[in-house]
């Protein structure tokens, strides 16, 4: 460990603990503690292994689940509806069998979105390096892990060697002090952060979320924030572990037990950033001043308070920014200067690796209880995992959603990315709890407003963009 007494950030400590080799003129070789796999970004990597006659080096550190091209309609229905998607799921099944990797398939009661499954089963642990062929891997940073998305070539590198060539990222502190007001959520914090720094603001950085408002958040709320680090341009984002982290982890299936737990806890307590550690960049927000947020445009940085007005291109000094805003408003078919609240919508999607955990479903159900989905709106509630789904059913949330007129689905990525049968029709507007509002992201020609589960549910009731506090 190259401490030399220099104060270090959490990310720097994890990095130092994982350096396998340093060679002049090359990036560091870093060891990976947990490799999460899904059906979309792994087939070509397994093909590379097969072509070279290689094995998976550490199947014990590799776990797979099905989520992206996975239908969330009844599991009894034949997958033949989608031959390409089915072939991809079958390929993952075959690859995991051939290479000896644990797989949570569609028959498993632990299947779900990769970034929901890892934490809830206790596989995600403080101090780990975690990778997945998915940009939302930063989610796992909520536990004080260094977790980041990789491409398929790198998936192959990790499968074969359990290592990656990496250069360290610059530490970027995002400090949120104060206390959130009633009706303002973790999703609103991260949407406000991205609106502030822009979607490229964190390029080459790893975010560390600090401050009293972050400390007060539950693990699920921290996951929502870390999840969208990539939307601020950072590959990774993390929260140093604390008692909230340890309490969440204790007793989970893959969490250490007995003497192993005590030893792990002692290691984890070394992880928080040292007093005097230096960040390359810093952003400070006051939680007391945050409002429920919503995006109006075609990237996650185009966000405003739900009570706000759509910006006017004339107000932009930078000509390129003005052109981009004009392009976004044209695609979204929105009038500059008009309020967002009250804009009609067609679909509400509660789900995705950002907001599909039990607390998200509880928040949405609290709004829906005793209310109906507007007749002009279709509402989908898609639990992030079968474990979340079971819990929701045990609490009667499924009944609340169904009674309100919402669809309550099986676990998967669903309408977040429109490759599994769930998607917007051209021209439709959605309020979605997911993470991306890019053109066509939720279906060709579809238009996405990103918001919290509270805002999404309230909008489902009224049929227009609605601040849940006004219900």
């Amino acid at each position: 460990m190259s401490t030399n007494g220099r104060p270090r950030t959490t990310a720097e400590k994890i990095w130092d603990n994982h350096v396998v080799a340093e060679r002049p003129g090359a990036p560091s070789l870093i060891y990976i503690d947990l490799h999460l796999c899904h059906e979309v970004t792994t087939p070509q990597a397994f093909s590379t292994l097969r072509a070279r006659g290689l094995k998976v080096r550490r199947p014990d550190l590799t776990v797979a689940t099905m989520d992206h091209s996975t239908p969330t309609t009844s599991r009894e229905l034949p997958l033949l509806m989608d031959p390409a998607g089915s072939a991809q799921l079958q390929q993952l099944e075959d690859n995991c069998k051939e290479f000896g990797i644990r797989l949570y398939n569609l028959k498993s009661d632990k299947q779900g979105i990769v970034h929901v499954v890892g934490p809830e089963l206790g596989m995600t642990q403080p101090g780990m390096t975690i990778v997945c062929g998915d940009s939302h891997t930063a989610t796992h940073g909520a536990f004080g892990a260094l977790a980041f998305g990789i491409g398929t070539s790198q998936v192959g590198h990790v499968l074969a060697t359990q290592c990656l060539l990496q250069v360290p990222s610059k530490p970027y502190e995002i400090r949120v002090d104060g206390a959130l007001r009633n009706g303002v959520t973790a999703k609103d914090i991260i949407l406000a952060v991205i609106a502030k720094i822009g979607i490229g603001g964190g390029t080459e950085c790893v975010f560390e979320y600090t401050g009293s408002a972050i400390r007060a958040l539950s693990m699920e709320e921290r996951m929502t924030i870390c999840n969208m680090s990539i939307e601020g341009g950072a590959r990774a984002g993390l929260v140093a572990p604390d008692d909230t982290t340890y309490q969440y982890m204790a007793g989970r299936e893959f969490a250490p037990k007995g003497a192993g737990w005590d030893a792990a806890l002692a290691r984890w307590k070394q992880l928080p950033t040292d007093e005097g550690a230096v960040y390359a960049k810093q952003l400070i927000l006051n939680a007391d001043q945050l409002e429920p947020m919503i995006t109006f445009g075609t990237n996650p940085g185009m966000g405003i308070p739900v009570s706000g007005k759509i910006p006017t291109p004339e107000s932009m000094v930078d000509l390129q920014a003005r052109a981009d805003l004009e392009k976004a408003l044209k695609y979204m078919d929105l009038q500059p200067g008009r309020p967002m609240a009250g804009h009609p919508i067609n679909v509400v999607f509660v789900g995705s690796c950002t907001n599909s955990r039990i607390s998200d479903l509880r928040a949405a159900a609290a709004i829906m209880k005793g209310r109906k989905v507007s007749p002009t709106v279709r509402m989908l509630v898609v639990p992030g995992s079968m474990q979340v789904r079971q819990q929701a059913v045990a609490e009667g949330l499924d009944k609340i959603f169904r009674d309100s007129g919402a669809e309550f689905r099986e676990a998967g990525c669903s309408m977040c990315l429109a490759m599994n049968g769930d998607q917007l029709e051209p021209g439709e507007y959605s309020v979605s709890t997911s993470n991306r509002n890019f053109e066509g992201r939720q279906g060709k020609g579809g238009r996405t407003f990103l918001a919290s589960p509270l805002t999404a549910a309230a909008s489902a009731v009224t049929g227009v963009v609605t601040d849940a506090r006004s219900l």
Partner: protein
Amino acid sequence: MPIPKIQTIESKTVVIPIENIDTDQIIPARFLKTTSMEGLGEGLFCDWRYNADGSPKPDFVLNQPQAKGAEILVAGDNFGCGSSREHAPWALKQYGFKAVISSSFADIFRGNSLKNGLLPVIVPADIHAELLRWPGIQIKIDLASQTVTLPGGRTIEFPIDPFAKHCLLEGVDELGYIQQQEAAIAAYEAKRV
């Protein structure tokens, strides 16, 4: 798989003057239901390139005659943001691009591109603005000297990670390079908690 070597790329440019072009635009998710790397070039910029009935949109630059044969794409700032899908550089390569020039790239896209012989070239804002303004000009990118040469002969240096440069110039296979460090990996595993 050894990656193809890159020395120099000489081509006219195609310009898409839009900032923050995300990987969902480069290759929409519905094209990701493949288990191979092939056939992605047709899906490149699909929703910008084609109408709902499959006919080409005449106002999109890749459908215009002057784009034919161009190997260098010039695009707005923060190119390749969003999803980690390596299908994005695969699609750009299969379409025929060998380099993308911008004022910045999203991290994962840049890394994925370098592993597939698609050169991400970062130029200063003023040069970037010039390149965006003059589509179709003939330029030369030389990797060894890390320079872009403009039509008037002016050269601009661009940054690149030295190891990535070495791999592209020599066709070094990164997986093979990591495997050579087996002793260090085994030693790390032996002391790992």
